[in-house]
């Protein structure tokens, strides 16, 4: 790829700033990623496949993807509800809740995991009511999903909010004037135009959940074959000095996030075409 020279601008600094940007991007991001991939390429396909698909790894992938999917679905439902309520209704505390939506992004993941695991433990504020009912949130796959829901909560709300704000209420008025009931208006007029944004938020939350580590390790208990997520297994392999094993798993996760990134870009492009 050739970076062509600057057009149409008499401002200085093009070479300097672009040069520095490319240098810094390569040093911090591209070379480290390339190093990881290169190390994986030094294995034979057979070796790689064996390391990446051990029984323990398969069960870790299954939990990671399953819990991430569950969390992303929960976020799509509650995120849509929250965005709707925040944009459409006026009620006391609205602005505080609006600001608090970003709390999971601002709170370090280790702290989130720590406090969630203590909340859902048998003697915790929530656990003391839930555990007798058979709902165990700490050290179970459910706990993993809870932590991932917390971490991904802001995505759907924040992608949906601007779309809802720009939504022309005249369209709803027209539907109502033509005799549609509120529910019908919502399902046939409002829902289709919100769907792309919800889908974008859903996939962002899903992508984030698959790579998440800090919040999960506290609440899951990290039991192999039961509550062990794939990123944790990478750390385990590394601590056992099994570099090849760690690299193989990491490359699988990396490949998955790149595929997801491409999908998200596609969804976003589709969504923006949908809106204008």
């Amino acid at each position, binding site marked *: 790829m050739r970076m062509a020279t600057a057009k149409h601008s008499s401002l200085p600094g093009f070479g300097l700033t672009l040069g520095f940007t490319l240098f810094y991007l390569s040093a911090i991001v591209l070379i480290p990623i390339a190093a990881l991939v290169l190390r994986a390429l030094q294995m034979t396909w057979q070796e790689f496949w064996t390391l990446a698909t051990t029984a323990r790894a398969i069960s870790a992938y299954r939990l990671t993807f399953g819990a991430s999917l569950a969390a992303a679905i929960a976020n799509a439902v509650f995120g849509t509800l929250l965005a709707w309520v925040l944009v459409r209704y006026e009620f006391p505390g609205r602005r505080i809740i609006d*600001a608090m939506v970003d709390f999971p992004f601002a709170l370090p993941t280790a702290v989130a995991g720590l406090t969630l695991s203590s909340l859902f433990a048998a003697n915790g504020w929530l656990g003391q009511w839930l555990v007798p009912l058979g709902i165990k949130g700490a050290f179970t796959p459910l706990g993993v999903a809870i932590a991932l829901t917390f971490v991904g909560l802001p995505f759907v709300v924040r992608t949906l909010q601007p779309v809802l704000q720009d939504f022309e209420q005249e369209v709803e008025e027209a539907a109502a004037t033509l005799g549609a009931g509120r529910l019908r208006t919502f399902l046939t007029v409002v829902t289709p135009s919100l769907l792309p944004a919800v889908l974008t938020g859903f996939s962002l939350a899903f992508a984030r959940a698959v790579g998440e580590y800090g919040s999960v390790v506290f609440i899951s208990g990290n039991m192999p074959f039961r509550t062990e997520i794939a990123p944790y297994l990478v750390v385990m392999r590394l601590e056992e000095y099994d570099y090849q094993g760690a690299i193989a798993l990491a490359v699988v996760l990396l490949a998955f996030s790149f595929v997801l990134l491409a999908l998200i870009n596609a969804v976003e492009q589709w969504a923006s075409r949908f809106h204008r």
Partner: protein
Amino acid sequence: MPGVTKTLRAGRSASRRGTEERPLTKWLLISTALVFTAVFLLLPLANVFAQALSNGFAYYWRSLSNPDSLSAIRLTLFVAAVSIPFNVVFGLAAAWAVAKFEFRGKSLLVTLIDLPFSVSPVVAGLMFVVLFGLQGFLGPWLDARDIQIVFAVPGIILATVFITFPFVARELIPLMQAGGSEQEQAAMTLGASGWQTFWRVTLPSVKWGLLYGVILCNARAMGEFGAVSVVSGHITGLTDTMPLRVEKLYNEYNAAAAFAVASLLAVLALITLLVKTILEWRQARDFIRAQAGGKTVDSDCNANGFNNP
């Protein structure tokens, strides 16, 4: 910007018949949202402080003033103070190149800048082990010269820089793109040098966006766990940052002390949210003022600052 649209809409929504839910539905939706936020956001926050103080204030204070906790606090502050300037300089350079010039491959460059958001923190940490660890590409060379990068402070800084890489750039790029380059060109025509133009014209016009990016970058830098955990080596008193200290105390069954350190990080999160909200309100106010004055609106803080995986 909820505030703005709200105000704008208030004017034109005289009649909204048939476009609102019945009061009962509305009330149900609002209460579900309130219960959900209370359980999922407020309770975890309150629990941090309740657990931190569960053994009394004296114990809380002792946990924080413990030399190992103090060294973790110092290391966290040091790592953030070193990593943020790197990403600020990069963010300014990248935004200048992307916003003020046209070149081929620009959209690819912008996508690559966001790349660290999609990499799992653990995988990010592993990359630096693969590069600089003893088994790694540069490991033997570094070892022969007695330079240690991973399992030491430089590795922690590198991992933090990687994780926080996009924050400042992705705030500044849209802001500087929307600003155009007429003002800079005017300054140059009037005889200002390139640096003068940058310092006196560009920087003041993006200062709030820059601050916004720095705030988000700082929150993530101080709170990063996964990537730092992989490269730190967990040497108590030397390479433990605050989040790692929290984990260590928790694994030593000293929950109250773990929560004491965690409470400082929770305060950091609250301050971050507060500053972020103030900056967004400020932006909304400028937006209204600009509209009232009939000027074009050229700045918009990205409300999705943290977003993207």
